[in-house]
């Protein structure tokens, strides 16, 4: 059996978790103060994921950058691939929160969506 100390990243409380990983792969989490902590601990010891937040270029808005995020967590080892894939993406205003900017990022099946309202700039 393996034991790992984790810090939950689900909310600002940052609970200290203990993960007990059995030989059969079963994971037991303690130290969490909510259900999210348990889920996080299990995921983190088996298949860690992260929501990636970054920007893409935008034309026709007040500012040249549009903030985006992966709609869900993607595998941790795909984070840089995700950033790479978005490097040359450019969209045009107007853009609304939730608009799909990239349909399937780094082969994860997860879309990248806009996190900001950008209206078309008249100037």
């Amino acid at each position: 059996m393996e034991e790992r100390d984790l810090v939950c990243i689900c909310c600002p409380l940052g609970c200290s978790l203990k993960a007990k990983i059995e030989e059969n792969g079963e994971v037991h989490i303690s130290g969490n103060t909510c259900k999210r902590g348990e889920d996080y601990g299990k995921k983190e010891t088996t298949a860690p994921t992260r929501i990636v937040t970054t920007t893409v270029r935008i034309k026709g808005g007040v500012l040249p950058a549009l903030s985006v995020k992966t709609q869900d967590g993607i595998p941790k080892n795909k984070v840089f691939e995700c950033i790479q894939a978005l490097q040359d993406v450019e969209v045009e205003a107007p853009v609304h929160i939730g608009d799909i900017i990239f349909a399937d990022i780094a082969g994860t099946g997860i879309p990248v969506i806009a996190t900001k309202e950008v209206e078309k700039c008249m100037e």
Partner: protein
Amino acid sequence: MTADIVIIGGGPAGLAAAVSAKEAGVDHILILERDKELGGILNQCIHNGFGLHTFHEELTGPEYAARFISKVKELQIPYMLETIVISIGNDKTVTAMNKEKGLFTIKAKAVILAMGCRERARGALNIPGYRPAGIYSAGTAQRYVNMEGRMPGKEVVILGSGDIGLIMARRMTLEGAKVKLVAEIMPYSGGLKRNIVQCLEDYDIPLKLNHTVTGIKGKERVESVTVAKVDENRKPIPGTEEEITCDTLLLSCGLIPENELSKEAGVLLNPVTSGPFVNESLETSEAGIFACGNVLHVHDLVDYVSGEAQTAGEKAAAYVKGLLPASKEETTAVSAESGVRYTVPSKLDITRMDEEQMIRFRVDNIYRNAYIAVYLNEKCIKKIKRPMLAPGEMEQVKLRKADMEQCDGLVKITIKIEQEV
């Protein structure tokens, strides 16, 4: 011009205050914002983790702001962008200017201060050396990268492990920079634990506690910085210096409420928070001038800002409608003692108090297995056990009006930290 309530600042505090004042029945509200759009600092905080308390979901900064912006638009609350406030008189006359109207004044019945805070700059840190390009406050770099699409540099050292510094360590790494080190002068990080994990550990960025930057090399552009270990008095220890080549130094060394306007209005400031002293209604020393958000005291969670601003909005609305009786002279002091650096509010008028009153505060050190204790005069009425208390995390405790009323001759409420005996 006239207005019932003028709100200075269209960030999270100003927006939430506007919404609650409007919902409390005040129609003539005006938000003044100096940037090109509403949302304030949230617009550059593109990372997620906002709104778990308020919306029970995890949002990015711009998404969190959008919830309030759409509410402001839905309620048709007027706002002016690219408008800067020059002064606030103690008669609540607000002088502002913008491109369209030039210089103009607004006679307000109530004012809500929601200007937020600014970052401690290099000048306040006394780091010797030339003044080359490549030294930014972490928030400035954040704005460049996330809003203006510019990269401040390629090899980065970050001084200070506050949340913005940690977030920027990750952000710069994702954008292709090499973050060589985060140096923290204190023996603990000022940032949230989750950010240490997901911003530093995820990317193998080293964090050196008890370390500071003692020198900057480079005349035109930063070429390297010298980092040294500090002793318990935070003085660099000779012989521990290490030179690290880099082209960029980011400073994440604390936030200071931006109160130049408040001072001019005659508002008394608390030297501990650099924000106004306020009573239970978040009203400053000037009747009818209220404060909320980071201009009042620096928060770590925007959810708490929204909650606080909602109260300020409600109270300002009550003031305008004549429903908030003038505060009595003999208010009850809320005293911060042993381990508690300050409290907001710092005094209570029990006759004006709601059934429950939130007291927010910060501790001065890391405490393990300690108690937050509340005393009315000399009597302890509440003891809350906490496994860990840290200066980087704002604490709160609720007081009940009923308890106050039951206490004969209440003159002082004390909040303190008590260790296990």
